[in-house]
């Protein structure tokens, strides 16, 4: 026989039929079903294959702790692997596949691994595959050959290769009280906190709030617990100060009471509504947290305990009570505690036969005895299950008398027919979040369980997490915790709901494993057996962390929710130590796996914002090829049809040198430096003097880091006595700003200087070339621009077609040039006016490539040379190091390492074979293409120089200047470019600067 839908009962909507597909077969279920409950209702017992031995596995739990029944949710090429079928709500069109099997789930070739049996014991990888020391398989080759197959056999589901079309979002939330878990304890906590006016968030990982009330047989306030829960939920929903988050797993407890949660917004829908995210990543900052996370049932470890049909007892109760599904017809129950008797009661009521309850204890409570007497065929106390029978499904079990004192079986085994075996090994409170925000968990002998530790953050616990397993305790603890969390003055319990519950004994027998022949699984997903734990002990891997790492116990997707405590107990027994002395592992986030998409949230598909200059649209409309410079987009070339990049920048460069060109320099960092001490401040941060700069003039400045290396360079303009405009390189704008802010706040708080980023306030266009002055003269009103009015490094104010502009005569290209600044909102207007005004002079727009070419010809340095390792001397900028004053870096710049003779220094390079050079190529004195060696430096930048008619570059070369005039070679094995070069001065073009001064 197989599992089936009970004829009545459950909280599913039997009127609504839902169609879905599993492994290519069509199935139906009802609204309210999980994939696991719906498949069980259809008689499916085989859900997956285990990790190592590929053993057939059924469903073991009904929730987030499921180790076995993992599936892949498929939507075309978009795949979501490793999802517990117990957590998937079915919807029309849902398509799921089983995993880790080939060719099919029933006939899996990987199951041959089982023949390896003991050979594949824990740690076997470490002991073999090393391969021979010599020969073709030496080194890592044999291992890598074997690894190829091992990798294919390992892994669970497959990730897709297609882009996930879903949207993900984040949400920042603030509340007074966050309640995690919506069982009776959580509901009461939320209610109590809400009543006192607190802002409350109640998060529940399941679709339907209510927790165990949804599947217990108890009554609360005279009504079925589930009904009580839904009415309590209804009341909470009506309150403005309560936010209810179903399908939301709180998975991380971070510093300062910040918790992370993932809400599965549309996973249960056939299609999202417009704009709806699939997952919402909540970061919740709570004043106080109430952890009402309940407890998880543990299995027992015995031979054959992994056969499909073996299920946790409470899971079975949930299947029958919540989903109306009978996991079998003839059911046996194997337990070390009373709680499993509840399942017997529920299943019997729904029509199954309870073949036997096998209880490890000889003595059981009266309440349990009464249940057994009323519903059970046989009540075998002082017995254990020592084997299960059947193929891919349980068909029977073997039982044997068991003695708790010696923890051993004796006497003759006998067989019982059963198609389902329910197991309970006691309960582990769900202390994961508590442990993330607390000290060491506390072991309670009586409950055989770890209880929440002492908090290191602001949380309270209520309900089963505290080891109080009765509903009445959950109600009273929940209410008290909620009231306390909300700082309610009226913490009086008042009239609390009354739970009408059984009086079963919460304490289990301290037995975790039945030792008998056969494979007894501790970690079902990773196929870690009790013998593996003992082998780890034998080899000395006795600390919990060694045990986990050596055997992989608890490292599977369920993170050991069913296996950690049994594994620990077996190790403790082997060591002859009490469990707490062996320890527990620290729980780390996440509590349950979280989609990467949720964490990336709104940055999925939008990793970084784009920064656009004011003239960006003009560049795009006029054919610019854009180049990513950090977050900015900058024009690289304005290519004409059919032009190569080189042809384009050569054309642009020639146009500038021979006439006039316009380039967008808006991305340069711009900082307003204002205040009575602004000039004094600049003297301290620049290597050269600025206090001597006249108003209306600009100066090139160099900054060092404290350690004496170059930080950045740029021009700074004195706009007024107390008002400077500093420019930085595009790349270093943020870094320089922070550097300066640090100095003002921390080192020199006495200076009255304000810094403001005005990068975005100004549009900047550099107009360069011998005809630039004429273009300006044609466009600018309100000021003269001739050499007297606007000398080199002078600044004037005027207007261009109605827009106010500020013009500084400075040059990066080496030509007569000006930087024209205007308000960013006028940027395109001014740019277009200059382009139009320059038409008669043959003006061209030019991009970074032409800009770079002209700066190489001039020997100006940029980020490629200012790479954080170069000094002012290395770059021949020592003329800028003032001797009249200390400045940032002056005390450290003369250390021996910064003065060494063999440092890399800036030089120029000319290609002697008339072939292009590459940035990143190295330079050698003796060429050896086969075995490159002896690098003396590298090229930082390279281009074709139209003025020289040669391929040239800048380089950092050991010894630098001393090599001027000598020959060497570029050695670029990565791009197979080798050839002769000449090392020259970095000033290729107009070293006297007569053109820009002209």
């Amino acid at each position: 026989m197989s599992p089936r839908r009970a004829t009545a009962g459950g909280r599913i909507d039997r009127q609504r039929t839902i169609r879905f597909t599993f492994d290519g077969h069509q199935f139906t279920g009802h609204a309210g079903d999980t994939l696991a409950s719906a498949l069980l209702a259809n008689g499916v017992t085989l859900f997956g294959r285990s990790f190592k031995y590929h053993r057939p596995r059924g469903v073991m739990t009904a929730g987030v702790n499921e180790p076995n029944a993992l599936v892949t949710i498929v939507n075309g090429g978009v795949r979501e692997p490793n999802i517990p079928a117990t957590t998937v709500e079915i919807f029309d069109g849902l398509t799921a596949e089983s995993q880790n099997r080939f060719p099919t789930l029933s006939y899996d070739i990987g199951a041959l691994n089982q023949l390896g049996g003991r050979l594949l014991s824990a740690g076997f990888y470490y002991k073999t595959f090393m391969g021979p020391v010599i020969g073709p398989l030496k080194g890592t080759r044999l291992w890598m050959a074997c690894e190829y197959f091992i990798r294919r056999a390992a892994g669970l589901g497959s990730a897709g290769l297609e882009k996930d079309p879903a949207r993900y979002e984040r949400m920042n939330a603030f509340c007074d009280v966050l309640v995690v878990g919506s069982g009776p304890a959580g509901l009461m906590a939320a209610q109590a906190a809400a009543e006192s006016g607190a802002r409350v968030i109640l998060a529940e990982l399941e679709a339907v709030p209510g927790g165990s009330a949804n599947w217990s047989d108890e009554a609360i306030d005279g009504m079925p617990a589930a009904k009580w829960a839904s009415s309590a939920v209804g009341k909470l929903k009506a309150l403005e100060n309560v936010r209810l988050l179903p399908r939301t797993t709180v998975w991380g407890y971070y510093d300062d009471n910040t918790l992370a949660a993932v809400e599965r917004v549309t996973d249960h829908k056939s299609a999202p509504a417009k704009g709806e995210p699939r997952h919402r990543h909540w970061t919740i900052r709570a004043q106080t947290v109430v952890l009402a996370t309940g407890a998880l049932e543990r299995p027992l470890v015995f031979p054959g305990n992994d056969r499909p049909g073996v299920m946790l007892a409470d899971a079975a109760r949930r299947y029958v009570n919540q989903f109306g599904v009978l996991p079998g017809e003839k059911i046996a129950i194997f337990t070390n505690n009373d709680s499993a008797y509840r399942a017997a009661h529920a299943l019997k009521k729904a029509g199954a036969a309870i073949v036997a309850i096998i209880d490890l204890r000889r003595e059981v409570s009266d309440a349990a005895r009464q249940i057994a007497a009323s519903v059970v065929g046989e009540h075998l106390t002082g017995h254990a299950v020592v084997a299960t029978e059947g193929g891919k499904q349980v068909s029977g079990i073997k039982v044997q008398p068991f003695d708790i004192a010696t923890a051993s079986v004796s006497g003759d085994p006998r067989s019982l027919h059963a198609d389902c075996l329910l197991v309970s090994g006691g309960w582990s409170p769900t202390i994961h979040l508590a442990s993330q925000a607390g000290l060491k968990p506390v072991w309670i002998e009586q409950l055989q369980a770890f209880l929440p530790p002492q908090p290191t953050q602001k949380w309270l616990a209520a309900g089963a997490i505290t080891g109080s397993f009765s509903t009445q305790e959950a109600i009273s603890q929940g209410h008290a915790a909620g009231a306390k969390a909300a700082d309610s003055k009226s913490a009086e319990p008042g009239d609390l709901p009354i739970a009408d519950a059984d009086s079963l004994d919460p304490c289990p027998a301290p037995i975790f494993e039945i030792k008998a022949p056969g494979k007894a699984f501790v970690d079902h997903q990773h196929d870690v057996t009790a013998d593996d734990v003992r082998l780890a002990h034998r080899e000395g891997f006795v600390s919990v962390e060694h045990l986990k790492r050596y055997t992989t116990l608890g490292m599977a997707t369920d993170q050991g929710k069913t296996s950690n405590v049994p594994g620990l107990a077996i190790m403790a027994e082997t060591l002859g130590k009490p469990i707490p002395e062996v320890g527990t592992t620290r729980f780390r986030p996440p509590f349950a796996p979280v989609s990467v998409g949720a964490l990336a949230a709104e940055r999925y598909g939008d990793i970084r914002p784009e920064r656009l200059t004011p003239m960006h649209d003009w560049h795009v409309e006029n054919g610019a090829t854009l180049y990513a410079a950090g977050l900015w987009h900058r024009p690289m070339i304005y290519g004409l049809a059919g032009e190569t990049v080189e042809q384009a920048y050569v054309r642009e460069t020639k146009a500038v040198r021979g006439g006039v060109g316009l380039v967008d320099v808006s991305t340069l960092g711009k900082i307003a430096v204002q205040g009575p001490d602004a000039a004094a401040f600049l003297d301290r941060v620049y290597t050269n003097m600025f206090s001597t700069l006249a108003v209306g003039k600009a100066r090139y400045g160099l900054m060092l880091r404290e350690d004496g290396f170059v930080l950045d360079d740029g021009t700074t303009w004195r706009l007024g006595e107390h008002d400077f405009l500093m420019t930085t390189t595009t790349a270093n704008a943020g870094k320089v700003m922070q550097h300066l802010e640090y100095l003002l706040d921390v080192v020199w708080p006495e200076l009255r200087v304000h810094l403001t980023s005005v990068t975005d306030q100004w549009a900047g266009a550099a107009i360069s070339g011998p005809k630039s002055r004429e273009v300006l003269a044609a466009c600018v009103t309100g000021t003269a621009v001739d050499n007297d009015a606007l000398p080199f490094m002078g600044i004037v104010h005027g207007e261009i077609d109605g827009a106010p502009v500020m013009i500084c005569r400075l040059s990066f290209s080496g030509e007569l040039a000006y930087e024209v600044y205007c308000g960013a909102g006028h940027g395109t207007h001014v740019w277009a006016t200059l382009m139009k005004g320059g038409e008669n002079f043959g003006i061209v727009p030019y991009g970074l490539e032409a800009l770079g070419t002209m700066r190489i010809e001039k020997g100006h340095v940029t980020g490629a040379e200012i790479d954080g390792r170069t000094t002012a001397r290395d770059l021949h900028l020592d003329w800028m190091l003032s001797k009249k004053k200390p400045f940032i870096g002056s005390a450290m710049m003369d250390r021996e390492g910064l003065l060494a003779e063999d440092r890399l220094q800036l030089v120029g390079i000319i290609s002697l074979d008339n072939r292009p050079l590459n940035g990143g190529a190295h330079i050698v004195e003796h060429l050896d293409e086969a075995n490159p060696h002896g690098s003396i430096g590298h090229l930082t930048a390279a281009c074709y120089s139209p003025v020289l008619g040669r391929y040239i570059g800048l380089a950092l070369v050991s010894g630098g200047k001393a090599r001027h005039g000598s020959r060497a070679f570029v050695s670029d094995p990565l791009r197979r470019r080798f050839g002769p070069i000449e090392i020259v001065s970095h000033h290729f073009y107009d070293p006297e600067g007569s053109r820009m001064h002209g």
Partner: protein
Amino acid sequence: MLITCPYCGPRNVSEYTYQGDGNRTRPDPASTDQAAWNEYVYDRLNPAGDHHEIWQHSGGCRAHLRVTRNTLTHVVTEVSFARDAGHRKSERHRKPGAHA
């Protein structure tokens, strides 16, 4: 981790930039004591426990703060503006619009 900016209130660590060890004193600018400079730039107390450090509220008011924070627990016990001489407790009430 939250840091309570004296101006902006408690904000996520993601709004702040760590600006390093706050135990260091920059030598007098004119000092030629190489050992003192080297110590300032390179040597760190790096304690396991309470640590005096400088943070910038770069994603907020941009002020630099002196923060005492435990490097074992991440618990912040003191915050004050770096501009203010000496250490001042982070105050809940914030002063007139201006200078806190």
